């Protein structure tokens, strides 16, 4: 692997990480969707680059799916949902942007700490990619738990999944990657569908526990 | 032949305690009366009482059951058997080994059990009160009594009364503090068990604190006679027990000749007569206690006996 190949891969993966942080920073739904679309596009570039570098042309399929489905279709669909369901455009963050960002930085540090000591037999490319991918995954998870809105949580999940695809394509010659990226897309479609059909708006996080009494037979006071 | 001799000796002891018991009671009553500046009944009055009662018609409540009728005989029998098994003038009588000190105490408990039940048979408040208090006193007295037994058996190495007496006569017992304490404790227990002042007043049943007399309130005629006789026997029994455990000198031990028996008998009679005189003297010096003071009285007995055990451990070395 040449240094240029490495640098480009590194740049794209790093770009995804930056976009992940940016996602965490957003406090408006539509902006979040836009940033996510951007991340998906960067992902497809990164995957395409890996396909080119590894000479594994089937990965192009994955890149294409990422570009079309996650770069355009899903953000557009979510956009529609947000309008149709009249979801608050303001994102209710559980903790402020500052602490979230700090936590995010901590997570990045942790992933570097975890992956960097690994060097036996693992190519540098995979290793760098892995650190970034792990960070993206953790940040996605962090996003899921710091947002109260179903749509933004789905976005968090998709960002997490972007990290997975990044890691999978970085693993040289790994079988089943394409199939799995397809499967994940279906999964995501499912969740979008779920939000839409079942009107799961604030269901994700109903802080008002009293409202749940109607639904949960289990809610018990002292017997 | 020897067997018959032994049987006679044993029978003699049975008859002896039975014969002497009312007299002992008479002596205590007389002495007490004299101390109170009364003339008092004749010494043989208890015999007459029993005789008279035996010939009277027994009046029973409509509800009285067979238990009520049987109890006086059972009480009398247990007390009599217990009294007869305590060595009086001689150790090592034919059946002396058939019950040791613990068994004798338990035999008395059998009588008490029956009497307490009889007190509840007709369903009067007085009977119940008496039984209830009798059982309280028993539960207070028995641990103390057990510790007395414990100490004595530790000193003598046995609970067999004959063997204890022989050990006390021949063994190198000496004057032990423990034994003194135990004697003290034993006297307390004996007072409680015989319903004497300060626990109970044997002379009345018209006082609210009565125990024994309340239990037998409904009895009359021959039944009452049996109960009175049993009470007298029990007093004698405790006197004999005290004599046997603490003052056994003069008893026939090895020598089983009629002469030795006669000497033993003389010693025995004089010793219990002395006790019969001492008891009323002590009784007139104190006042009757409230029921809820009993634990203090008998607790004292228990503490003394416990102290005796521990002192004995100390003196024997750990």
């Amino acid at each position: 692997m040449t240094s240029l190949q490495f640098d480009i891969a590194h740049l794209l993966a790093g770009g995804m990480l930056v976009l992940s942080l940016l996602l965490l920073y957003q406090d408006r739904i539509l902006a979040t969707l836009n940033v996510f679309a951007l991340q998906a596009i960067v992902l497809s570039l990164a995957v395409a680059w890996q396909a080119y570098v590894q000479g594994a042309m089937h990965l192009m399929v994955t890149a294409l799916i990422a570009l079309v489905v996650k770069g355009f279709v899903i953000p557009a669909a979510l956009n529609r949902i947000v309008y149709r369901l009249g979801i608050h455009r303001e994102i209710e963050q559980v903790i402020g942007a500052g602490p979230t960002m700090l936590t995010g930085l901590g997570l990045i540090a942790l992933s570097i700490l975890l992956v960097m000591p690994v060097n036996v037999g693992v190519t540098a490319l995979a290793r760098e990619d892995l650190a970034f991918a792990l960070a993206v995954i953790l940040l996605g998870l962090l996003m899921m738990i710091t947002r109260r809105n179903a749509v933004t949580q789905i976005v968090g999940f998709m960002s997490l999944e972007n990290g997975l695809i990044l890691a999978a394509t970085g693993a040289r010659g790994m079988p089943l990657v394409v199939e799995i990226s397809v499967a994940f897309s279906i999964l995501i479609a499912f969740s979008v569908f779920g939000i839409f059909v079942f009107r799961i708006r604030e269901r994700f996080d109903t802080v008002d526990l009293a409202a749940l009494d109607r639904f949960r037979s289990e809610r018990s006071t002292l017997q | 032949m020897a067997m018959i001799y032994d049987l006679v000796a044993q029978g003699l002891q049975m008859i002896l305690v039975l014969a002497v018991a009312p007299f002992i009671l008479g002596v205590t009553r007389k002495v007490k009366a004299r101390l109170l500046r009364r003339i008092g009944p004749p010494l043989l009055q208890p015999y007459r009482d029993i005789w008279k009662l035996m010939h009277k018609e027994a009046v029973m409540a409509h509800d009285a059951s067979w238990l009520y009728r049987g109890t006086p005989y059972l009480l009398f029998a247990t007390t009599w058997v217990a009294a007869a098994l305590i060595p009086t003038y001689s150790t090592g009588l034919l059946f002396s080994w058939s019950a040791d000190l613990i068994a004798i105490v338990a035999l008395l408990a059998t009588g008490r059990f029956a009497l307490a039940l009889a007190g509840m048979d007709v369903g009067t408040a007085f009977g119940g009160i008496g039984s209830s208090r009798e059982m309280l006193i028993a539960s207070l007295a028995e641990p103390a009594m057990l510790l007395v037994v414990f100490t004595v058996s530790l000193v003598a190495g046995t609970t067999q009364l004959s063997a204890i007496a022989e050990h006390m006569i021949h063994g190198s017992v000496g004057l032990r503090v423990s034994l003194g304490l135990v004697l003290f404790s034993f006297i307390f227990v004996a007072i409680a068990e015989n319903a004497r002042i300060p626990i109970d007043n044997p002379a009345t049943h018209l006082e609210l604190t009565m125990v024994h007399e309340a239990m037998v309130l409904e009895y009359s005629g021959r039944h009452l006679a049996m109960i009175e006789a049993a009470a007298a026997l029990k007093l004698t029994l405790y006197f004999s027990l005290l004599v046997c455990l603490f003052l056994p000198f003069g008893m026939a031990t090895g020598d089983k000749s009629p002469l030795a028996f006669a000497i033993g008998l003389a010693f025995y009679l004089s010793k219990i007569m002395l006790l019969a005189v001492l008891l009323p003297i002590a009784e007139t010096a104190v006042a009757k206690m409230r029921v809820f003071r009993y634990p203090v009285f008998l607790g004292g007995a228990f503490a003394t006996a416990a102290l005796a055990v521990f002192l004995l451990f100390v003196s024997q070395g750990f």
Partner: protein
Amino acid sequence: MTSPLTYLLAIPAAATLLLGLIAHYRIGALLNVLASGATLVAAVALLFADRVRTDIFIIDDFNIYLVILTAFVGFTTSIFSATYIGHELEIGKLTPVFLRFYHALYQAMMAAMNLALVSNNVGLLWVGVEVATLSTVMMVGIYRTPEAIEAAWKYFILGSVGIALAFFGTILIYLVAQPVIGEGLPAMAWDLLLRNGAAFDAKLLSLAFVFLLVGYGTKIGLAPFHAWLPDAHAEGPTPISAVLSGLLLNVALYALLRFKMLLAAHPDTLNVGAIMIALGLISLIFSGFMLYRRRDIKRLFAYSSIEHMGIMTFAFGMGGPLANFAGLLHMTLHSLIKSAIFFAVGHIAQVKGTQRISQIRGLSVTHPVLAVGLALGVIAIAGLPPFGMFLSEFMLVTSSFARQPLLALVLVAGLLIAFGALVLRMQDVLFGEPNGPAGGVKASYIPLFVHLALALMAGLWLPEPMVNWFRAVAAQLG
């Protein structure tokens, strides 16, 4: 390829497609039973066929008995499901349209579980577990009540996160194996991984295991990843609760154990046993306490499943021949007993028209046979003799007390706490002044009592081949 393995996978897959096309529910139910039965036959036939080993599939001592167990419980559950679903249709809780999905999904789930069990490829294993999960998600939400949708959604989200994390773990496994074994399929074949395990990078392997643990742990229902489990059990149709508890949890645990073996083969990795012990005990104690305040009878037993998964995880974490043996036995018996309990509970909820424990009382007066079934099930699941779970708990407690007294004490405390809660609730249900309807039952008792009879037999007498089998696997597990 005409090995039974083909049929094992093909029959449910084909049945899935076929059932999706059949509208009539009676035929659907019948076909469902038939397909499950045929799968069971295929599974049993595996015993007599040659062992298979390719880069994709493997049949070894470990999975063969799980395959049979899965097919068996799948079969009995399909029988139970037939009567159960009929009643649901009668009272209008389900419509025939949904039943079509229901039966198709049921077979899809069976196919996926079989796939997960027989795959040698860790990626395929992952695929199997996930497909099984997703098909159950849809079945959980099939009643379309707000509670059911809530439960399905929770299951879906938590499941998806689990899926994602497990996938990352799988990638890491590939990454760690690729430099040693080379690119492509062999680097994901489990038996090759195990053989070359000692040469892998310990750090990365440990990292992989953490993700796999969290990912599959979510499926196993270990606390604190358990949240979907109680609701999914409580709100879905009871046959699904039965297979969820009886099978899916087992399959996920199976996956985790495969990876545990991998790590155990390497000396320098993380102390996997300790982590599993910790998670197991947390699950056990936590669910033990949670059992006390339960008001819904199905949720109660869902928590009991968490408890038992905790016990198994603890057992495998302890390791050693006895504890592993106990864990495997516990796994088998939990499948049988818990599904039996759900069979009973399903009918009880139907005849009483409620799942609320407070509204089901004196069952032994109104429905004695169901009550006996439930009582025996609870006795069995509580680890009381003469049922088999006593045997596994006996082996586990005694062997771990001799090795790790303090941990065993925690285990015992957890068992006792959970036991207290279970009996407390069950006595109320079974005894006392009866309430609720006392009408007749249209129930299939055969699956219920067959399961209990098997559990009873295990407690008294384990057949020699079975013992040897368990021993061999226990030795493998290390």
